[in-house]
């Protein structure tokens, strides 16, 4: 046990735990302990075994087919690995509770919030239904959900993601557990909501004196939440220590690589342009800097804009009467206007429901606009012929968040990459096409030998490279990257960011970079547009938006981003409120905000 931890008996102590799934070992010889009232963060990238560890403590990993090859999990003087499932059922929910990653799917859609909280109370506590309901209401108050008395009779789908995660927390805390396991509890949430949830968790932990195991891949969240950190890599613990020590002087090469890859908000302060940064990679067990550092001064603002979006509005009819009259509408995008210049990266940032993806889809003609126009190279979509519009699909390429879903699992990746070439008739002859596919694969760092493989044979990062190769195949002028980095581990993310930048420098590509991740946006973009409920709140150069944010919303967004530095001053101001529902009745359209240019190129929406 680490000397930094208290000497009192730990609440939970995992000793030499090894977990197997079939023949493969996913956790090996893992030891750590949790003291009452303290938080241990387990960090690691996908496949590090961190989630399996949490499910093993709960003995829920059994249901997924896990076997425990070695070790003990001591809790309250009992080895949980020796407990029967019947004994475990008395511990689960009562002594040890768990919060999961996906708040949208963690609650059973067919039962009310109240029923689901009461269930655990009725199971473990000596309460009748009425008492349980009263307690449920109290718990909802505890997680600062308004109108708790009314909320108990509502169903999960009537709640936003943030509210659902609060319900999950309330449910987990119902029986005052001694230990709370939180498995990526905020990963699926928007940053402002994440900040709220983290604050609540921190405060409740303090109030209840629980021990907490916090599992995350986000170093920023670690810095905000953890007392102690366990770093896992490929199923093994590589480093353990107090949070300050891990951030200040990481010992293990992997920890150092990981920390180096984390995009840190504010790291670009003072820079006029984005910078391609060298990567820290593990080579022969030692972190090493590879690649050049280069200022990404690629945007050609002297040219005419490549893409021009003028007063774009997009709306969806949500509800109709039987006579087809629309009563409710979602104004996804209202009067949005921006230009993208050749060689430029324009970032569209915003939270769920901001309309950022809808704009991207409209530019790619996957969605039609209600009003406004988009012109490419000076020609409006509305004046183009069908053939011209089809050609636009060659000039503008799209990269999605989920690379697996966007590749046909039954086709080789070579076939997928060649598809745009064939569709647009860019090359003729199998030989020439094959050469081009090989070049593209080499270019995205995969190598031509991969052309004959199928998507499932690749990792997430490799698949995203394949998607990039496919996007490059038709030699486009503009690539729309829609959350293209969001599903990737940070080390992979850093590589792909560099790939994007290199391609931009080589080919003069323009990017429309759609993202919710402020730190990544700061690293990559020339200009930034902040979207909120379908309107641009603020737009300007990266520096203008990040260093002198003018709009309240931009400031709130920036303040919410967890800072990967435990020494940094924590934002204790709780940001209240949820993102409003953009669906409205017909006739009650949201006000269109005007905008003013406060500095050359820096636009801010006027308040309504």
């Amino acid at each position, binding site marked *: 046990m680490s000397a930094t931890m208290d000497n009192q008996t730990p609440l939970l102590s995992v000793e030499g735990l090894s977990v197997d799934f079939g023949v493969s070992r996913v956790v090996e010889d893992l030891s750590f302990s949790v003291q009452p009232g303290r938080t241990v963060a387990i960090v690691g990238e996908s496949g590090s075994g961190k989630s399996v560890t949490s499910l093993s403590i*709960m003995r*829920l990993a059994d*249901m997924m087919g896990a076997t425990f090859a070695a070790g003990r999990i001591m809790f309250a003087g009992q080895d949980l690995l020796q407990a029967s499932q019947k004994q*475990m*059922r*008395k*511990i*689960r*929910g*009562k002594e040890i*509770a*768990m919060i*999961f*990653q*996906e708040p949208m*799917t*963690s*609650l*059973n*859609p*067919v*039962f*009310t919030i109240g029923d689901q909280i009461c*269930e*655990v109370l009725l*199971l*473990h506590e000596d309460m009748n239904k009425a008492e349980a309901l009263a307690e449920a209401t109290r718990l909802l108050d505890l997680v600062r959900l308004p109108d708790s008395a009314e909320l108990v009779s509502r*169903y999960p*789908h*009537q709640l936003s993601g943030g509210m659902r995660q609060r319900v*999950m927390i309330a*449910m987990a805390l119902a029986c005052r557990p001694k230990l709370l396991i939180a498995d990526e509890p905020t990963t699926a949430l928007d940053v402002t909501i994440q900040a709220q949830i983290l604050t609540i968790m921190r405060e409740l932990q303090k109030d209840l004196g629980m021990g907490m195991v916090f599992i995350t891949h986000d170093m920023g969240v670690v810095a905000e939440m953890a007392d102690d950190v366990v770093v896992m890599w490929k199923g093994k613990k590589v480093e353990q220590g107090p949070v300050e020590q891990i951030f200040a002087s990481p010992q293990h090469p992997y920890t150092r690589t990981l920390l180096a890859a984390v995009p840190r908000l504010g790291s670009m302060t003072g820079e006029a342009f984005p910078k391609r940064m060298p990567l820290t990679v593990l080579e022969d067990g030692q972190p090493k800097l590879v690649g050049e550092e280069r200022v990404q001064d690629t945007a050609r603002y002297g040219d005419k804009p490549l893409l021009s979006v003028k007063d774009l509005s997009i709306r969806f009819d949500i509800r109709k*009467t*039987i006579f087809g009259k629309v009563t409710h509408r979602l104004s996804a995008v209202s009067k949005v206007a921006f230009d993208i210049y050749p060689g430029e990266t324009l970032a569209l940032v915003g939270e769920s429901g901001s309309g950022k993806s809808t704009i991207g889809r409209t530019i790619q003609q996957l969605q039609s606009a209600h009003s406004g126009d988009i012109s490419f190279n000076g020609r409006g979509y509305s004046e183009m012929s069908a053939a011209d519009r089809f050609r636009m699909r060659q000039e503008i390429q799209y990269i999605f968040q989920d690379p697996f879903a966007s590749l046909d699992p039954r086709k080789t990746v070579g076939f997928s990459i060649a598809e745009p070439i064939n569709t647009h008739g860019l090359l003729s002859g199998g030989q020439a096409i094959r050469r081009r596919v090989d070049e593209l694969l080499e270019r995205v760092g995969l190598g031509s030998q991969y052309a004959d493989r199928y998507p499932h044979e690749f990792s997430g990062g490799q698949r995203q490279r394949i998607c990039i190769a496919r996007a490059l195949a038709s030699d486009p002028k503009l690539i729309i990257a829609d959350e293209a980095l969001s599903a990737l581990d940070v080390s992979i993310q850093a590589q792909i960011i560099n790939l994007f930048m290199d391609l931009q420098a080589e080919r003069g590509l323009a990017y429309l970079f759609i993202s919710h991740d402020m730190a990544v946006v700061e690293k990559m973009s020339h200009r930034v547009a902040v979207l909120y409920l379908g309107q641009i709140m603020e737009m300007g150069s990266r520096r203008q938006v990040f260093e002198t944010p003018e709009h309240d919303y931009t400031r709130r967004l920036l303040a919410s981003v967890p800072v990967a530095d435990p020494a940094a001053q924590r934002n204790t101001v709780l940001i209240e409120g949820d993102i409003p529902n953009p669906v409205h009745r017909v006739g009650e359209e949201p006000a269109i905000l005007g905008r003013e240019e406060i500095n050359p190129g820096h636009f801010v929406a006027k308040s309504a």
Partner: protein
Amino acid sequence: MAGFLVKRLLQAIFVVIAITLLVSFAIRLTGDPAVTMFQGGGSMTEDDLARIRAALGTDKPFFVQYFDFLKGILTLDFGRSFVGGTQVSTLIGNAIPATLMLAFVSMAISIVLSIPLGIMAATSRGKGLDQAIRIFSLIGLSFPNFWLATMLVLLFSITLGLLPPSGMGGIESYIMPGATMAIILTATNVRLVRTTMLDTLQSQYVMVARAKGLSETKVLYKHALRNCAIPLITYFGLQFGGLLGGIVVIERVFNWPGLGTLAFDAVGARDYPVLQAVITVLSLLIVGINLLVDIAYGLIDPRIRTE
């Protein structure tokens, strides 16, 4: 809700018109009921045929006949059977309860069997029990229903003398026809329940339910099953429609006086009014079942209820 019902009703009217139009037209291509009435008998003359056609009304143009039929539906008057001249509504009125009772019994047996079996198979996925259930379901699927029926009759009626081989009477008369249908339905349903359950068991809320310390029975039958209900009810609803079609064979084998028997005899005799009426009633039943399914959706899934 009112709008929804109106929409359904319009849908039902369209379906009934489309189907009856097709069936009425098609059956008129296959032969003349007047000729059938003479049993291919020798002494019939063209005069005789003309006389019978006039009596039956089949001498009128097709669309006149069809519109008469449509007009009849509005007053629940389906005309008279060409065979014997009985009011079609009487025949249908006798046959509907017989068919519905049989269909409900079969569905009920099948649902009661297939849900626990399907859940057992899903929870023991890949293991012996799962394999066994899947093999039995495969065997069930490969039975032709008339063969199965014959085997049951041979065993339970003739060899053991326990159950009546045919006819509709007391509860005992439902056992074999109900079981024949149910075995075949269960074979499919078990697989469906298994697949749906496997999907649901992947859901996060199932894990959450387990993390609360709930027993497996509660996790499966309370949390998971209710969420399986939407796809299952959709399928059972569709199946009920299919079942009404498939019941013809079973009704014939077990001499069950239902809609299937009525339709079968009507086709044989080119008894247009009876056939048209049976088809209309079947379409309405299917539309009705779908309506019930839609209502059930709302009861089961709050996401639909609060739309």
